């Protein structure tokens, strides 16, 4: 039973790394994506094939996966990020679907729909969560530096971002590459943890989950993404009682509707969750309570 929950936690960690990548792109830079599971697939198959065919050690192979994913990102970014309008979203949709179709249709290399098995299992809970913590620290630093602030400026008001000297196309490309690198890495870790890969692990539904988790957590909040990820990614496991799993998408839908109606900016909005912020909130709340109490007492007197 314990090993079961360790497994759930490990997978949650892996998908959280991918979700954080999508958070930088969708949440902080304001570029919508419908195909980031495709970048995960490229990372996963890149890693697995580098191990199986090139006989690289696992961590060098992950690097191959990351680079392959970034290369795919650079190609669609180069083609679409300069354009105004929805071209980028369409391109991400295309890359998500094309990757899956390509994997299914080159069975000699990828194993096709039957999958790719016998990948050496080299990752575990500790490796994944150590990487996750490092990723969170690095992203936090990124967002508090020049380049991260540039991303937020592009999301908020592109023309104004240009007018203060930000190269918006480059900034978008950087954000896309970071998201591709993280999704690629998550894919590689997935390959190394599961030991096998199937194309149906990387469907459009998975892409939507990644983007949806970011939006539910609050676009523009790293802690929001983490909180939403910790709740939503292991959701199918909580619901594994009888056939409740099938209700997962229904629950997702209900959650989206609830958030859109009651808190359109997501769980955390664009604010970060901090201990000092929480204390400040509590203090404010208590002093209000106290004031109300005193007022009540005064009226009675």
């Amino acid at each position, binding site marked *: 039973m314990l090993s079961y929950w360790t497994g759930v936690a490990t997978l949650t960690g892996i998908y959280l790394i991918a979700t954080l990548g999508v958070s930088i792109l969708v949440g902080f830079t304001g570029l919508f994506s419908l195909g980031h599971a495709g970048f995960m697939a490229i990372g996963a198959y890149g890693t697995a094939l580098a191990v199986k065919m090139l006989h690289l050690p696992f961590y060098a192979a992950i690097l191959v996966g990351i680079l392959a994913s970034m290369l795919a990102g650079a190609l669609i970014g180069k083609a679409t990020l300069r354009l105004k309008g929805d071209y980028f979203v369409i391109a991400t949709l295309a890359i998500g679907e094309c990757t899956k179709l390509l994997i299914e249709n080159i069975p000699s290399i990828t194993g096709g729909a039957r999958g790719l098995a016998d990948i050496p299992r080299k990752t575990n809970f500790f490796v994944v969560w150590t990487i996750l913590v490092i990723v969170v620290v*690095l992203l936090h*630093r*990124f967002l*508090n*530096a*020049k*380049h*991260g*602030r*540039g991303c*937020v*400026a592009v999301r*908020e*008001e592109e*023309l*104004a971002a*240009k*007018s*203060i*000297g*930000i*190269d*918006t196309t480059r900034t978008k490309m*950087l954000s896309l590459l970071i998201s591709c690198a993280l999704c690629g890495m998550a894919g590689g870790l997935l390959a190394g943890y599961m030991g096998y890969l199937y194309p149906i692990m990387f469907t459009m539904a998975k892409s939507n989950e990644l983007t949806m988790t970011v939006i539910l957590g609050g676009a*523009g909040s790293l802690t929001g993404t983490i909180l939403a990820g910790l709740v939503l990614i292991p959701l199918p496991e909580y619901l594994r009682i009888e056939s409740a799993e099938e209700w997962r998408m229904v629950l997702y839908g209900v959650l989206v509707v609830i958030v859109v109606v009651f808190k359109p900016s997501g769980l955390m909005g*664009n604010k970060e969750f901090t201990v000092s912020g929480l204390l400040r909130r509590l203090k404010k709340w208590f002093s209000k309570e106290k004031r109300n109490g005193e007022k009540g007492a005064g009226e009675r007197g």
Partner: protein
Amino acid sequence: MSCAASLSVEHLTKQFGGVVALNDVTFEVKPGEIHGLIGPNGAGKTTLFNLITGIYRPTEGDLKLNGQSLVGKESHEAANMGIARTFQNIRLFGELSVYQNLITACQKHLSYSLLDGFLRTAKYRQQEREIAELTERTLKQIGLWDLREQMAGNLPYGQQRRVEIARALVTDPQLLLLDEPAAGMNEEETGKLSEFIRSIQEQYPVTILIIDHHMDVIMSICDRITVFNFGSLLAEGTPEEIQTNEAVIEAYLGSE
């Protein structure tokens, strides 16, 4: 600190298909002056701003900042050469605080790399400290320090204008373009704005080019004024000269 720049507009023409927005316009903005740009709606004033800031490319002619051509520069390159602007319809980073709006605009003063940011090197810390000081100084000078925590999009209109100007100022511009800063303001507010713009020119070494329809603002603060009509230059001169210029009066009020 940079010094105020000169701007020369030389035979500038901009056509959108068959529409001639600007037709062979030539004039000069001298370093350190407040230069007004007026004319009826559709005269091509904002088009000129968009040409200067690289949003549009001129069809013909040249634009020079301190003798250096601006033609073919992207918006962000123009900004890095020392041109800052505000927009006719305010464009703030609405969901960020006033402080974050300004600190984001300090981009130009930061030369550290992506890696420096990840590792928080000495270079990163040093430069971040510098822009924090610059932001604090600017907010205090402009009188926005008390509002620094407020979300920019929630501020009243007049304050948003000030934040937008402050954001332009932290980029350390040599040429500041103000596109209708007094739009939608009442008499009292425009009076304050005039004082504010004059105080900017006293505190910062910057050339200001201002578009507005409020004649009281333009006449009271501008050193020189250029008048446009239907994309062409109609008149140029000091406020006194413009007020008595018959061609200008005719364009605005019609002839007898």
